[in-house]
């Protein structure tokens, strides 16, 4: 690592630690940072904490799972966005570009419609996301095109629109008193109902997909070159693109299944990370994961504490994301060419 990347990593780490500190201390039941550190240290060393049981309970049982969920979902969405932006050589690409989010959304509303349990809803969301991307990829393979990447993106838009219509239909058919509110809240994104068993279902695919992306970090650098150039450098772009898309879709679908639709994170965070540590994926992936985790911790803390009711995450990220996106459009020429 050259010296120039260290300040960037330091900033990403500060964002992550600040996000963690705020997420643990703020809330309806404010807790001092010292108490939080005491409980966590006690948990790690196995000794009894020096704080009341209620405080320990809030930290470990109430906020703990939610903090871990925010870390995983934020990190996963940022890592997936980083991978997709590199793969499609486009700064305006996000993890849901190939229909992963819309597919997962349709799966989840179907699960709610058929009154499946939490596990059933999340499984369907997950399968929906993977099926949507598989469909997009099939179109990309079957339709001959000079520019296979543009074709994939367009196929993603088309499939996403179709799945959006499917979500609309299920909502239209749903029981308006019980099912429809559940669908609406789920689609807006929330970490409020995350529990320990959700974390296991989230951690496994996120770890697996991220491991594949990290392993391919150098090949991903080369694949950000034009297709033929990458192949002339010895990179089998076809199979690797499938591997990268599958890995990024896996982490995206797992996040959507756990927390609903949380847009913008995968679009914004990779840019900030690139500005901090440069475009080399060996640095970019960890920096993105740290920033994404810290960012979603901030957002989720605002969602919990800003109003007397919880604000949906999707709404908060959109409010912050839109001005950022406009700034991005204005400055994209400068940063990308």
């Amino acid at each position, binding site marked *: 690592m050259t010296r120039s990347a260290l300040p960037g990593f330091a900033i990403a780490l500060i964002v992550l630690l600040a996000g963690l500190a705020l997420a643990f201390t703020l809330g309806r039941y404010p807790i001092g940072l010292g108490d939080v550190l005491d409980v966590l240290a006690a948990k790690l060393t196995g000794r009894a904490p020096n704080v009341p049981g209620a405080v320990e309970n809030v930290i470990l049982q109430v906020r703990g799972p939610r903090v871990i969920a925010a870390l995983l979902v934020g990190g996963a969405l940022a890592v997936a966005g980083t991978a997709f932006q590199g793969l499609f050589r486009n700064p305006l690409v996000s993890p849901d570009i190939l229909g992963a989010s819309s597919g997962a959304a349709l799966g989840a509303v179907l699960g709610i419609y058929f009154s499946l349990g939490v596990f059933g809803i999340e499984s369907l969301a997950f399968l929906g996301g993977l099926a949507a991307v598989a469909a997009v990829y099939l179109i990309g393979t079957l339709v001959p095109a*000079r520019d296979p990447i543009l074709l994939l993106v367009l196929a993603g838009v088309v499939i996403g629109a179709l799945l959006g219509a499917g979500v609309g239909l299920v909502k239209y058919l749903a029981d308006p008193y019980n099912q429809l509110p559940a669908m609406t809240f789920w689609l807006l994104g929330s970490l409020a109902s995350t529990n320990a068993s959700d974390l296991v279902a989230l951690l496994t695919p996120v770890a697996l997909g991220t491991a594949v992306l990290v392993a391919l*970090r150098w090949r991903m*650098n080369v694949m950000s070159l*034009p297709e*033929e150039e990458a192949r*002339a450098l*010895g*990179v089998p772009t076809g199979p690797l693109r499938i591997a990268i898309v599958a890995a990024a879709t896996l982490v995206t679908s797992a996040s959507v299944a756990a927390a609903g639709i949380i847009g913008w994170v995968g679009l914004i965070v990779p840019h900030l990370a*690139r500005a901090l540590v440069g*475009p080399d994926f060996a640095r970019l992936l960890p920096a993105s994961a740290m920033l994404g985790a810290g960012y979603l911790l901030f957002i989720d803390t605002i969602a919990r504490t800003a109003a007397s009711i919880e604000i949906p995450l999707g709404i908060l990220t959109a409010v912050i994301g839109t001005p950022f996106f406009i700034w991005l459009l204005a400055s994209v020429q400068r940063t990308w060419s």
Partner: protein
Amino acid sequence: MTLEGHALAIGYRDRLVGLGLDVALAEGEVLALLGPNGGGKTTLLKTLLGLLPPRAGEVRCAGRALASTSIRERAQLLAYVPQSHVATFAFPVETVVLMGRTAHSGLFSRPTARDRAVAAAALKRFGIEHLAERPYTMISGGERQLVLLARALAQEPRFIVLDEPTASLDFGNQGKVMREIRTLSTAGHGVLFTTHDPNQALRLADRAFLLRAGTRVTDGPVRTVLTRENLEELYGAPVGVLTDAATGQTAFLPG
């Protein structure tokens, strides 16, 4: 060791670009590919590089059919220098050159200390080691072309194929890049490049291949092939000739 195309038909799935092409390039030799725009120069390059499968015929490199080699094996034999382009990401120059080492490393590995040494030597070879830390997006067109040459050299191939290496360069940089290309062949590489300038081919290439509308006009040693008659036939336009009385060297003028 040679790079050869036998009875090649070249083109895309829906469009045949050229037919009946035989090309051969030996190690240590420089071959210039000339012809009008749209005549199939780039398509032929991509076919010889294995980036585009031939519609008929066969490309062989080092005695093996190119179609039977893996992408990685091909990259160890053939390096491709595309037209100088604007990159998407602001990778440091050193990283761009290191990308040339990809075919020599495992699927999941990062460049090693040896790879870095090879890349540093390639940068030094072209006198651009001072650019190593600069973003590839922030250097001049001539510097970018030299970086791509360094990347090709770091790839340690037998043959280097260049698509209009001087197309977007100013007069001074054209000369500099062409001299460097010539020295690649003295180091033992076989070099194939396309150009719009017959004078470049005359000064720097051993042989020339004249390609028009997907068919061979003629090919052979530059002194015999690059004549006014052949060039007028190739481009379908009048060509002027200047001859230096003292040395007997010639230069061509368009129009």
